[in-house]
């Protein structure tokens, strides 16, 4: 999604109030943005704590500050700066974390970002944007840039089956219609299930939704989705994020507040940093039971 990110930011670059800070990342990707923004493109060096506080101060001065790094260096290293300097003041700093989930899988555990939006959404005023498809980036950047609050954009690698027509961006989208279970996913991992779900017979084919914006207090679950959950009596949530504090918890709390209690609730999630070996994103998804076969064993069952 980096190319699409760069294109979307270049579109926005004519805004004189926009500044972009990178933690020394973006080689072979963000050069067009650097060219477009000139002095407003700032390589803040390998110093993420400083970079986030600098961005907070720039936002306090009325500038639209975007901060970019590999995801864990964007939210974990400078967490206190995000909390104290950005969130406590409700400053509209936009944090972009590249490589959400296990995208940097074989690079090792320091590069995994599997507790990012959960951790950040504990902070006041914070919004999270999780584009699913490469085609979502223009809308994602526009929406993240427009909210008057701190925001985190989790980038991944868009994955769609050949010939799939990506539906227009919306905070909630139903990607598959069927008569089977109800499934909700977050992020590009949703694309990995599309072929399998679409090939199921209608009675097993799930009603499959993706959500791109959290928390749900700003993006409530659609009525049609809630009705499907009531009708099916079960729900599966899939996310490349640890169990605690992620989408599963968010959905469960939202449903509880609405008096909805499906008899079955299945949560597919990243299984933390517990593996003895490392590998690609696909490998680590498999280790976590997020692979298509494992998910189908539940979703595709009578």
């Amino acid at each position, binding site marked *: 999604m980096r190319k699409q990110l760069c294109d979307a930011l270049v579109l926005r670059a004519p805004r004189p109030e926009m500044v972009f800070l990178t933690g020394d990342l973006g080689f072979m990707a963000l050069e067009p943005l650097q060219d477009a923004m000139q002095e*407003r493109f700032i390589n803040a060096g390998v110093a993420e704590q*400083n970079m986030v506080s600098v961005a*907070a101060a720039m936002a*306090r001065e009325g500038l639209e500050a975007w901060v970019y790094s590999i995801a864990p260096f964007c939210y974990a290293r400078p967490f*206190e*700066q995000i909390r*104290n*300097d950005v969130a406590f*003041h409700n400053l509209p700093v936009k944090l972009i974390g590249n490589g959400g989930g296990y995208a940097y899988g074989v690079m090792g555990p320091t590069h995994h970002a599997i507790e990012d939006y959960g951790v950040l959404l504990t902070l006041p005023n914070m919004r999270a944007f999780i584009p699913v498809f490469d085609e979502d980036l223009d809308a994602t950047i526009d929406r993240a840039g427009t909210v008057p609050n701190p925001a985190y954009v989790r980038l991944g690698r868009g994955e769609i089956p050949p010939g799939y027509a990506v539906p227009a961006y919306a905070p909630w989208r139903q990607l598959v219609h069927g008569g089977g279970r109800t499934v909700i996913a977050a992020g590009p991992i949703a694309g990995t299930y599309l072929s399998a779900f679409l090939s199921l017979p209608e009675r097993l084919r799930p009603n499959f939704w993706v959500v791109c914006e959290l928390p749900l207090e700003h993006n409530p679950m659609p009525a049609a989705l809630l009705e499907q959950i009531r009708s099916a009596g079960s729900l599966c949530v899939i996310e490349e994020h640890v169990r605690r504090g992620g989408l599963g918890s968010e959905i469960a709390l939202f449903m509880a507040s609405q008096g909805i209690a499906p008899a079955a609730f299945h949560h597919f999630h990243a299984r933390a940093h517990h593996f003895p070996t490392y590998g690609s994103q696909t490998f680590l998804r498999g280790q976590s039971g997020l692979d298509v076969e494992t998910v189908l064993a539940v979703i595709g069952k009578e």
Partner: protein
Amino acid sequence: MHFESGVGHIGGNLSCLDALLILHHEYIGASERFILSKGHSAGALYVALWSRGLVSDAQLAQFHRDDTLLAGHPPAAGLPGIRFATGSLGHGLSLAAGTALALKLKRETGMVYCLTSDGEWQEGATWEALIFAAHHRLHNLTILVDHNNLQGFGRTADVASMSPLGVKLGGFDVALQTVDGHDPEAIRAALEVPGNTCRVIVLETRKGHGVSFMQDRMEWHYLPLNEQDYRRALLEIEAQ
């Protein structure tokens, strides 16, 4: 107010009070910005703002009490003259550098002043900020260091010495000065020296300055005043 509220941090408030009063009365106008990186000296900042009429008597009387804006460290919003909630050390200098760079990008004038403690330079983020400020030649940034040589649980030289701190700071591309932080004329003279890069003024100060039994005593980093100490301190200060 510390006595009435039963709170401490008096020593580090007294060490920087002279500089804070000079800054707020003589140097900080509508175009300037001030960031208190050593947020535990909020009391001294509130007094400086009160003496300029930016904090009311009633607000000051609520210091450190329930439902107050005047918390033990600067609040996130609600008080003119305070731009950021500080109190976790090592944040203020980055905030000041970001403010200074933003003003440059906006083609606005005005100096950004940032007051740090000396122990605070043990925080790695302060060095990240100094690298950034020096690299961007933020001539509109003035960093003041309250060099009182004492921190929360010992003398700075004994805890994690950076001595001589000025040499370390001066190793960057900054305009460094060291002055007596309790000599108003010396402070003013340092603030008048222009620079084409960021200015660093090390204020040689004494913790608990002005009260004999507090001066240069580590325990007054945290201790509150009892009534006897309070009366004695008042007599001493009035006699000066």
